[in-house]
């Protein structure tokens, strides 16, 4: 996928500055990244940019976006991202939420159900799993936590390096701090979100790795029940970070779900 031309910009949304990466042409797709932040380039982003106008905003307080100290909830991030789309005059975007970003995507969908073409949730946090618990960042080391997102550890080594850099560790700590500030209690889910998804009529695709050790698969079922028009896809031999572990498989699922123009 070499040759995808990404632009970097800083966009101010009602006083909150966001780092935005954007590439490709076609219908708009917003990709919402994990609580571990995002690497600058990922094959999954490139694969989508071959077909769509892809926007990857760095969440406030994560990766290259500065931390707004006033933020207190994940819904605050969703509102800012909704503001971003409004400022950019993007209507009817498809939302692709990865893990923690899936929670943000679900909140965004619930806020403006009419302004949404498709919703894709991949190993999404945000709902209390009926069985099992979401892996706790606070008691898990940086590398152990990041590795828990992968079924195949050699893929982790390829993505982050067998020994992630000190810069990467520092970034994980910055991201962690932001997650604590906005999602400490209840940890990584909303008690109201499942009840707010009933109005989301847009087609939804819920994707889960069959070996997700971060968000138990039971949460997938709960999402499918809560969303009126949702279907479930399980990716085999894959961990929580489907986007990094099986980028082509996920891109294929997304493009066949959303369709190409």
């Amino acid at each position, binding site marked *: 996928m070499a040759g995808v031309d990404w632009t970097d910009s800083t966009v101010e949304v009602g006083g909150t500055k966001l780092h935005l990466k954007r590439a490709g042409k076609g219908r708009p797709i917003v990709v919402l990244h994990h609580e571990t932040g995002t690497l600058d380039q990922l094959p999954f982003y490139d694969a989508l940019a071959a077909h769509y106008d892809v926007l990857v905003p760095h969440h406030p307080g994560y990766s290259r976006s500065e931390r707004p100290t006033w933020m207190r909830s994940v819904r605050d991030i969703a509102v800012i991202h909704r503001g971003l789309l409004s400022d950019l005059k993007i209507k009817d975007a498809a939302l692709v939420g990865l893990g923690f970003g899936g929670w943000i995507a679900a909140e965004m969908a619930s806020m403006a159900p009419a302004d949404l073409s498709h919703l894709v949730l991949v190993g999404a946090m945000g709902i209390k799993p009926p069985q099992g618990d979401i892996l706790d960042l*606070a008691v898990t080391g940086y590398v152990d936590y990041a590795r828990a997102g992968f079924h195949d550890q050699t893929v982790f080594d390829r993505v982050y390096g067998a020994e992630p850099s000190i810069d990467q560790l*520092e970034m994980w700590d910055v991201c962690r701090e932001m997650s604590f500030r906005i999602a400490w209690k209840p940890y990584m889910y909303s008690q109201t979100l499942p009840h707010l998804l009933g109005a989301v009529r847009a087609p939804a695709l819920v994707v889960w790795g069959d070996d997700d050790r971060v968000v138990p698969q039971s949460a997938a079922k709960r999402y499918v029940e809560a969303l009126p028009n949702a279907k479930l896809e399980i990716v085999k031999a894959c961990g929580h970070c489907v986007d990094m572990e099986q980028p082509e498989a996920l891109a294929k699922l997304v493009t066949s779900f959303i369709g190409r123009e």
Partner: protein
Amino acid sequence: MHLMYFTEQPMSAYPEQAGRDFGATALMFSNKHFDPVAGSRLYNDYIEQYMLAEEVGVDGIMLNEHHNAPFCMQAKANIFAAILAGMTKKVKIVMLGNPLPLAENPIRLAEELAMIDMISKGRLVSGFVRGGGQEQLATGVNPAFNRERFEEAHELVTRAWTQTGPFRFEGNHYQHRVVNPWAVPLQKPYPRVWIPGVISKETIIWAAQQRYPYIALNTSIEQTKKIWELYDSVAADVGYVGGPENRGYLIQVHVSDNEEKAIENARQFRWMQGEFTGLAHPVWSTPSGYGSPSARRAFVEFASGRAKNPRGETSFEQQMADLRIIAGTPKTVVAKLKRILEETRPGILALWGNDGRVSQADSLTCIKLIGQEVFPAIREIAKSLDLKSPFEANAPVHLKYSTDLKPRKAAAAE
């Protein structure tokens, strides 16, 4: 000079091998290894120690609290403070301290402390701490707001103690529409507040800004001197001269009637595998957002095993040589403490006398020798060095009650 006895109240009956096998002795180390029969015996042993400490003439008993770990059995310092308030007659009950950020309702804390102060007839010293990282996780409190919660809870507690109710408090982390506790402290304007700490510069600066004595916890002589340098400089900025009445020091000192036994027992100060608070994952002790942002890079290097502990790891022998652990008969102990007093000039001194698996008989001997031989000698030395405690110096409880302030800029203009 104010002289205190301290013990961490070790849960010495836990199976050490289980901790080594698990690889940690804190936070996630299962409480299936806690034996309440031994716990009951030990709590009562500690009460016996405190009663003896009062009998042999210590000025204060220092209390603290920790959670989910064998190194300290006090899960709530106010429980022991309440016991001592009723059982003792003379000693100051010195809490170092209540972890303010852990309080979901600081008014309840203010009420408990007011009750302790009244029941003890005004013998409470109400120290406050941030609580370690693991304490936040053990109690489900957000570590990223630790310092903000500390400062806000402090404001609410001291206002609940001093401001006539009912009033309303609308903070960032605490909102109370009716503040009107029917329990207020006996001591006026409020019980003395001392602030213990280990490394955070921010805490030293904050304590100096409030004019609260800072209690350095087992730091080396050089570290202690640096702490007082910083404290005194902030004191000068806000307009007072830092002195012994602002300085406290806690040190591990085991006293016995023979040198060999003293040293053998002092090895128990390293009983948690050499780690002060036991073995733990670094991200438990310093969760993200708990530490200074300036220390982030050094911390992640340490936490991922790429660098050594920035706090350093030293052997028992080295700690003895550095005078961070002192052991011996009263005579040798006093000589070593004298050097610390001369070099760092504290007005408050706490001896952490017993730890780990030191027997109750040896613990009681230690306390007796501290009270009857070490402290009388220290009092004489303190007198000759003019080391006055906050009580002797009649120091203001807080900066705002000062009558002698000369802020640096104003002084320079004179």
